[in-house]
């Protein structure tokens, strides 16, 4: 009898506590909110206003960006490249991540460490690594000379840029997928196997849906990083005109800040829109992206 009274008391107290806990919890957000407001929102507002200004009577920055086929083409190119890189990274990283998370073999920990330290490389270094692989004197050029008599050089084209972006995206996906695999429910897979489902069926119907939140969240970060990446494209140069490079061009061409600001804001808005879309795709609202 006393236990039921205790239980009832706890339930009532629990409800009160829940109401009291939430305002306390909101206070914990204050430092982060302050930092973001002061060092991000305020400068962003500055940038948005700057993009709307006119320079030498050429129309506002936004007008120049949105009415120029060159800039719009660059935005489209950047978007498509980022999307393709994200899908490729998810595929490659997904397969590798699941494999590494599940199997145990000699040298596994070393392999994982080796696959993830490229995360630290700045974009410029990745650009030079791509040149080492696919430049005029790169590995593929030598291979091409031996096999086909002509050098296979693709470092300075979109293919080279794609390789570079893939290079720094794969480690991120592997890390996230490996962490997500820990919390996958193996019993579901075993149940599916015992019901007669083949390996690929299990992958499509059990594993991928189980990993879906992690895949989407990781894909979102990969997409955002690829949209904003500058160092790699800067190093590889040539005809690549992805938007971050276009921003740099405008910026250093007599300090044209209005168009640079407008381009940046439009790029940021575009990325944010895609991320929002990706978020909507995750149905479970309790799972955190």
């Amino acid at each position, binding site marked *: 009898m006393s236990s039921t009274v205790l239980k009832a008391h*706890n339930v009532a107290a*629990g409800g009160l*506590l829940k109401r009291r806990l*939430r305002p306390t*919890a909101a*206070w*914990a*957000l204050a*430092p*982060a*909110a302050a*930092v*973001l407001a002061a*060092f*991000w929102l305020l*400068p*962003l507002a*500055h940038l948005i206003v700057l993009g709307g200004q006119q320079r030498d009577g050429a129309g506002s920055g936004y007008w120049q960006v949105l009415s120029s086929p060159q800039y719009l083409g660059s935005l489209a190119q950047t978007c498509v490249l980022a999307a393709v890189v994200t899908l490729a990274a998810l595929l490659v990283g997904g*397969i*590798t991540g699941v*494999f590494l998370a599940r199997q145990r073999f000699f040298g596994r*920990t070393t*392999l994982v460490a*080796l*696959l*993830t*330290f*490229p*995360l*630290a490389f*700045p*974009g*410029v*270094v990745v650009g030079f*690594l*791509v040149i*080492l*692989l696919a430049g005029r004197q790169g*590995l593929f050029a030598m291979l091409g000379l031996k096999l086909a008599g002509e050098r296979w050089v693709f470092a300075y084209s979109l293919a080279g840029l794609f390789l570079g972006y893939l290079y720094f995206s794969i480690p991120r996906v592997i*890390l996230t997928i490996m*962490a997500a695999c820990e919390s996958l429910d193996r019993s579901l897979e075993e149940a599916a196997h015992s019901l007669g489902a083949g390996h690929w069926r299990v992958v499509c119907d059990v594993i991928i849906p189980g990993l879906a939140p992690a895949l989407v*969240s990781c894909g979102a*970060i990969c997409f*955002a990083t690829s*949209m*904003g*990446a*500058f*160092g790699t494209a800067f*190093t590889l140069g040539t005809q690549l005109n992805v938007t971050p490079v276009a*921003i740099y061009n405008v910026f250093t061409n007599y300090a044209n*800040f209005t168009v640079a*600001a407008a381009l*940046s804001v439009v*790029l*940021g808005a575009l*990325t*944010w829109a895609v991320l929002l879309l990706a978020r909507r795709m995750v149905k479970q609202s*309790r799972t*955190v992206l």
Partner: protein
Amino acid sequence: MKRSSLFIAQLLFTLLVCAFMLVPVLMSLVAGLTRNYFQGVSSGLTFDWIAQVWQAYSPTVWLSLQLAVACAVCVCVIGVPAAYALVRMNNRFSRAFEELMVLPVAMPGLASALALLLTYGQFGSFRSSWLFILVGHVLFTLPFLVRPVMAVMQRQHLPTLEEAAASLGAGPLRRFFSVVVPNCRAGILAGVLMVVTLSLGEFNLTWMLHTPMTKTLPVGLADSYASARLEVASAYTLIFLLMIVPLLVALQAISARLSRGEQR
């Protein structure tokens, strides 16, 4: 039999990915030790380039390490409470805040840096100090700590634990430090690993925020790739690797041990 052939296929695929990631790095390392890259390894191996780089660029190594540590500390102080708050609130406002947090990653570093310069550039001594770069790094790496920590907090069924502690009379601060934080150690450390890695390699923001007196390693690396010989730049990359690989391996080992401990 079918299972083992699948295993072999996946292993080969993984090894191929590994080769893609590592072969260029090895080539770069060899270039840093070669006397003359154009002639190749036949021209002899030497430590001269490394000595030359260390003489010219060693301050960048220390500054980068200092920034990475400071960034990790700041992001923990700001981010862990924020993650706790976002998990507990779990309403429209918290979701919007999460979106806001990711925006600095979505915008190119050049733009964020320009915005920071225009808004805070007039505070001369702040702008010329390494603290200005720190601000940029914290903004950029914050979501990379908050997200893993949030994920861990959700897995650990914190509400139950917290209510137990609260019913025993613990105040909110005590609950946070003695219940919440210890249970999320693995997640926090995983986030710190990511933050340190990203800070060490951060280039886009730092490039505009730095001054010639506060040059970080990635900026110095970009400089040397642009204006010095390939051997010098490759030697610099070698030093960079020598700096980060032990750090990352150590952090990963600690994180793995902690997460194993949590699963028990």
